[in-house]
């Protein structure tokens, strides 16, 4: 029972890996964010990152289920 999470840019660098997993089978995106803020209290960039569920931008109240792929997307700077 776990949820896969992808980290990019500053978040990937601060946590030290691109992919992590947290225990759980159903929670909101906001709860995922809070879990990571508790796990990595020194990484404040979790606060300002957008989130995506299965490659679509999500709001904090959207529900994440087991098997979903959650991504934290820091402010983008392409182009």
């Amino acid at each position: 029972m776990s949820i896969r999470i992808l980290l990019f840019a500053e978040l990937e660098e601060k946590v030290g890996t691109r992919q992590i997993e947290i225990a759980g089978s159903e929670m909101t995106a906001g709860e995922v964010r809070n879990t990571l803020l508790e796990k990595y209290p020194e990484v404040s960039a979790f606060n300002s990152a957008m989130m995506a569920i299965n490659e679509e931008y999500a709001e904090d109240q959207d529900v994440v289920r087991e098997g979903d792929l959650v991504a934290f997307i820091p402010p983008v700077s392409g182009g």
Partner: protein
Amino acid sequence: MNHKNFEIINTPIQINQVINKVEDRNAGAINTFIGTVRELTKGKKTVYLKYDAYISMAEKKLAQIGEEIKKEYPESKVAITHRIGELAISDIAVVIAVSTPHRADAFAGSRYAIERIKEIVPIWKKEHWEDGEEWMGDQLEHKPYPEGKPGKGDLN
């Protein structure tokens, strides 16, 4: 030959290949935008840049931008290639090509695409200077996200 119109690659972008994807007998104009690596930003000298991306989502979001342009200009064709990895000064980071029957729409579509890339496409740039490095955040010069993220209307 690769006909994917929206792609993230880690090799130098061949401008002509991007242009070829939007050629059309009904086109009266093809507008191209070429984004390159600038040396000086606010007086700070960049030595090289590194781009990274959430590739699968970034290609979907580039395709979404193409759909948005098509909605506004139904006869348009759009192709966008963004390069990631390590880039030197003057290297090409992004090429956008938009063809339309009339030139004004090609200019407008191309402009829209580059602004939209900076809003919704998960690509990140890390600037490396002589004395340090940093992941760059929101590069928009005219429209900062009010709460550090795009509003609902920006995403759909």
